[in-house]
């Protein structure tokens, strides 16, 4: 029975890939058709073929800038996830921290993180640090709130059980609340994977000398719209790969959770 299921899963995955390729092909064809039919100048809207040519011609330049953005996003993501998880655990353990920090954190969400980008550039300079700070800030709250929520929502029956077993609170947190909250932490990480590239690119737009966001602005300013699109394509590709990788990681982390919903 399990072999049959694996087989059917493989078929649907193959179908999904085929459908995605098909949809992308149709979209590219439409794009090229619009360019031909309307005959817009390439500096307004270059066709996909022209963008591809630009991607190949500028591969070195794009790669050099892409690595900077990727590094900013990855470092911001890891730092934000670690700091966010630590904050959520601390909020869970300390009533004082809850009373003092929670209102401030909720209020701080009223400030758009984008609005902080100029200040962060002023403080941390034009290098990678200000972009890492942007990525970190933009993902910090989603990670904290999803993980903290998960930590608080442990099945009360399990907590009763732990109490009758004579478990000290710290060990209940470590061995019951924490593992039970991993699915919630996982959805926080997946959100973070979506937001972190946005944060880094915004940071680059405000002031940078390297990175895909910087390259896009530069290309735009010089009417090299095909290079702008090529950079955008690489950025989108990285964002998709990052999301897929984080999803795979969180699925591994909480394999038991999907087993429960399957009913197996």
């Amino acid at each position, binding site marked *: 029975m399990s072999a049959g299921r694996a087989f059917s899963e493989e078929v649907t995955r193959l179908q999904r890939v085929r459908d995605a390729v098909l949809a992308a092909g149709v979209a590219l064809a439409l794009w090229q058709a619009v360019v031909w039919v309307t005959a817009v100048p390439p500096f307004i809207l270059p066709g996909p073929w022209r963008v591809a040519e630009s991607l190949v011609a500028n591969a070195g330049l794009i790669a050099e800038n892409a690595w900077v953005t990727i590094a900013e996003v990855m470092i911001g993501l890891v730092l934000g996830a670690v700091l966010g998880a630590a904050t959520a655990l601390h909020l869970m353990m300390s009533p004082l921290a809850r009373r003092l920090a929670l209102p401030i954190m909720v209020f701080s969400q009223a400030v758009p993180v984008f609005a902080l980008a100029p200040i962060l550039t002023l403080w941390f300079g034009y290098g990678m640090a200000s972009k890492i700070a942007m990525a970190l800030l933009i993902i910090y709250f989603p990670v904290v709130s999803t993980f903290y929520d998960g930590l608080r929502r442990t*099945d009360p*029956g*399990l907590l*009763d*059980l*732990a*109490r*009758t*077993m*004579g*478990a*000290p609170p710290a*060990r*209940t947190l470590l*061995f*019951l609340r924490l*593992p*039970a909250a*991993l699915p919630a932490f996982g959805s926080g990480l997946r959100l973070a994977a979506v937001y972190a590239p946005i944060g880094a690119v915004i940071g680059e737009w405000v002031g940078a000398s390297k990175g895909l966001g910087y390259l896009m602005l530069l290309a735009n300013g010089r009417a090299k719209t095909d290079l702008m699109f090529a950079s955008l394509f690489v950025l989108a590709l990285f964002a998709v790969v990052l999301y897929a990788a984080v999803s795979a990681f969180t699925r591994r982390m*909480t394999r*038991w*959770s999907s*087993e*429960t919903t*399957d*009913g*197996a």
Partner: protein
Amino acid sequence: MTKAETPVSPVGSAPSLRLGGDFRHAGRPLFSGLDLPVAAGRWTCLLGPSGVGKSTILRLFADLDTGGSFDGEISASDGAPVAGRVAFMAQTDLLAPWLDVMGNVTLGSRLRGERIDRARARDLIERVGLADHVEKAPARLSGGMRQRVALARVLMEDRPIVLLDEPFAALDARTRAEMQDLAFDTLKGRTVLLVTHDPAEAVRLGHRIFILAESGLSEIEAPALDPVRPVEAQETMDMQVRLFRALRGEPA
């Protein structure tokens, strides 16, 4: 706590219990003037409709949050406190889905930071008939098997007092009867308080049977036959009828 190679019944060490007093929830009395004795080393069944405070009584014994205020006394015949010597089994199996059967059975030791006695856990898992499933996740077990894991976890805790909150209610009839037999057999010698709303279950298992209703607590004398009582015995069937009538507030 006594540690044994195989689960030996702690006869003699299991105390009798008594809960007496009033309980108020949200300003309204849930029960008052209650006096419930729980016999040492025996099964006491507490039967009654939903919402009269059966589970509250269990939670009071286990020193769990009840959301109300209790004015009275909870005592054990040996004078030691009841809380801390209690194992608890509920209608839902309360298995941690991220732990396998072994991990769930040994959860108590892990939570207290004690050395984990895997050999003993393995024995107990075997005892409840799950020897082939030691490393399986709860999601891959049936409802009956999951309750068996919960029972093995209770046995692993090895407490003299066992509180059961409708642990067999969600099982199908055949599995329920099997679980009742297994639980009665493995918990022999412990002081057991079983809360149920199933008259048939109380008749099968109870050394003493109490009915808790809005009007108060009353004892229905159990049949002379020792539990587990066969369903087909005349006394069992008569008793079931009497309990059913008493539950509906009719004269017995």
